């Protein structure tokens, strides 16, 4: 321990400038990320704005008990988990697959065009995206017109609970497939070309090359992205859900985050919603640690 401190001291002196440059980052985390955690105590208090964080009375685990006992607890937990699971299964791999496919395209211009077009939705504001969805999926919208061409009944996509998860995940893919493939494309481009050469010498087909060279080559990147994804597992894109949902589809669309928003901000139940948020964060934290440990055990790649 002692020797470690001495080493640290020496290092600090030696690399003054570098540590100095670290300061703003450190300050950012202290002020904006760790500082607000002090406010988390209201999850155990009955927060009254006029009395502030310190003056409000302690109530222990009351809000947690209320939440676990709430009629909506089961539903929003289920919705959160399902939606996260579905995005993991259906959305997460799309970036990888798309990158692999792009990599196989030889025509440079065509490839660039496909790439650029696929990035585009990522840069459109969420409000506009959801507005477009409402237009496309309306009863007299684009999608229903196509359905009608096949002589089928129009579907109220945005108004039926049964369709929510499908529309949500599909739009997620549409929005982010191009963007999420960038990091994998970068990983692919860093694979040593001699590996492909060797594989070709051994008579490997395009498919075999992809399977035995490209995929293992980007596996470390996939693992890291996976761990990061798991870290955000419980925080499915709630801005989008808030824009998309209405009471009719609460049944499938209401997730922990939107519940926190409604309770906390709209009904001014700050303590209750802080408790729910804390519960959510605790799950995410556990999942992240778990994913990292698993990755560590399975292979070399890990986040820390």
């Amino acid at each position, binding site marked *: 321990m002692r020797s470690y401190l001495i080493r640290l001291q020496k290092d600090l002196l030696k690399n003054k400038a570098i540590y100095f440059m670290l300061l703003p980052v450190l300050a950012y985390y202290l002020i904006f990320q760790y500082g607000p955690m002090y406010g988390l105590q209201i999850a155990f208090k009955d927060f009254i704005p006029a009395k502030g964080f310190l003056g409000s009375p302690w109530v222990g685990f009351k809000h947690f008990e209320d939440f676990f006992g709430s009629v909506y607890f089961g539903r929003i937990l289920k919705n959160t988990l399902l939606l996260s699971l579905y995005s993991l299964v259906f959305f997460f791999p799309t970036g990888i697959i798309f990158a692999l496919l792009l990599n196989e395209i030889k025509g440079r211009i065509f490839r660039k065009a496909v790439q650029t077009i696929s990035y585009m939705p990522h840069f459109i504001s969420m409000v506009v995206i959801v507005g477009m969805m409402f237009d496309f999926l309306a009863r007299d919208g684009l999608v229903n017109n196509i359905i009608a061409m096949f002589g089928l009944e129009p579907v109220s996509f945005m108004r039926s609970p049964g369709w929510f998860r499908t529309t949500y995940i599909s739009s997620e893919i549409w929005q982010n497939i191009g963007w999420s493939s960038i990091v994998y494309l970068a990983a692919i481009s860093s694979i040593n070309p001699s590996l492909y050469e060797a594989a070709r010498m051994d008579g490997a087909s395009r498919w075999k090359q992809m399977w035995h060279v490209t995929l293992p080559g980007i596996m470390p990147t996939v693992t890291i992205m996976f761990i990061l994804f798991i870290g955000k597992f419980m925080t499915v894109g709630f801005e989008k859900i808030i824009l998309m949902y209405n009471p009719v589809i609460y049944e499938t669309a209401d997730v922990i985050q939107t519940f926190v928003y409604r309770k906390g*901000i709209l009904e001014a139940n700050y303590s209750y919603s802080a408790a729910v948020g804390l519960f959510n964060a605790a799950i995410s934290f556990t999942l992240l640690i778990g994913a990292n440990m698993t990755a560590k055990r399975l292979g070399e790649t890990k986040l820390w």
Partner: protein
Amino acid sequence: MKKNQGKKAALIALSSVLTATVMAGCSSDSAKEGGTAPQSGTSSSTSEYPRAFSYWVELDGDSAISMKSFSENAAYKEMEKITGTKVDFKHPTGGGTQVLEQFNLMVASRNLTDVIQTNWFNVARGPQNAIDEGTIIRLNDLIDKHAPNFKKYLAEHPEVASMIKTDKGDIYAFPFIRGDNKIKVYYGPVIRKDWLDKLGLEAPTTINEWEKVLVAFRDKDPNGNGKNDEIPFLLEVSTVRNDLLNAMIGAWGILDKFYQKDGKIYYGEMQPEFKDFLTTMQRWYKDGLIDKDFAAVDGKLKDAKTSNNQLGVLYGFSSGTIGKFTDLMKDTVPGFKMAALPHPTLREGDTPAAGMISPTYPGEHSVAITTAAKEPEKIVKWLDYAYGPEGHMLFNFGIKGQSYDIVNGKPAYTDTIKSDPNKLTFKQAQAQYMRSHYGGPFVQDVESFLQQMKYQEQFDSLEIWSKAKNQLQLPLMTLTADESKKLASIMNDINTFSDEMIVKFIMGTEPIDNFPQYVDKLKKFGIEEAIKIQQTAFDRYSKR
């Protein structure tokens, strides 16, 4: 905010030094200065009006068409000339829940403006709690000492005086008051009169007649485009559970949510009559009489459907719907005519239990002074101006010679308002000069309301919609903080649940036979305790 306060304190200090040398400011001088420059020293701290204060208020849609802030409104500009007060308007962005969100965050973060205009009944835990927790201040003494106009008004209208108080007797806000019974009726069912005439039908009065007319609208192509694209009836889901805005439930003799009968409180959505209402609505929906999109209709969509010449019956406003669309459509759809329908009943000749009658004091647009205000007595003085004779004219009619003239002893809007060259609607034109098109802390003048109307159908609508017993509504009762909290926690769960269930019942995804289970669920959520709380509050109110 803190910085502003510091600045303000500095200004006050500076101005009091100046007062020693300059005589007490005369307001016409400060008007020329625009009240901006502190070095002018004309409106001194000894002035009875505040030098400046901040004012949180929603920018209504009609105003937002032509301005970014109320400081561009002619009435407020005039106020600045008269009082020398610079009002710093803070407008929340967006609408609906976004406004509520910004309000809640402002209160929670203690970043309060000096005054806040909102509906204090919709604020979490109510107005009494806002006073008790130190968000806003009790105004009784201040009104007594510094608001002669408002005090006079209250003395002349004791019924209003009791409405604007909490049970403890605290006055928490300067209210918006509808100064005449005629202003209280402005919303109800509207039908395409030209469609009725074309099909040779009478205006329906009972639910059965409604159904017949709606079926005819569906089948007989009243818009004459050869396509079966008519939407007979637009039922808005957001108003189904709102008895002020959708009085249809009154045909069954009850209201949704809480109502009282002979002093006893009931909850409408658990009554058998409510089941009958849902049964009818479900049938109408299934038969294509109700718009398929009803579960997610907003104002934009409603306007689109109406101006698309597709809609037969909807709920709307005398000027905002009948007037607006008659103006808008008369060129594209020859003979376009909208007329008010009476609230339907079950049996012919009955009087519906509920119609449209908004309270004298509706709760909305009330201005409270927060604990952040440095000189509440001066702000009270400023707010009081609107309740005096000059302020009344200013806020209701705007600027004399510009937006109104006196004709035959009565104020009459000029052509600037009536036919704006920039194609603004009547209300949008009003919004540039006054506040009476929407609401605010003043007494609304009946003339400002009646002169919005130019078609006979609009005048008729007031008559037609006002015919109802209207004995079931609850007054605007105030609850104690504990009661509010308890009630809110019960009702929040119930409202989420009912919003969902009622749509499902109407759309038929939930069979009506499940109504008893629905009622059981309401009981499990604690509806009976909620009724008890309302009963206590109602008894207290009746004793006031």
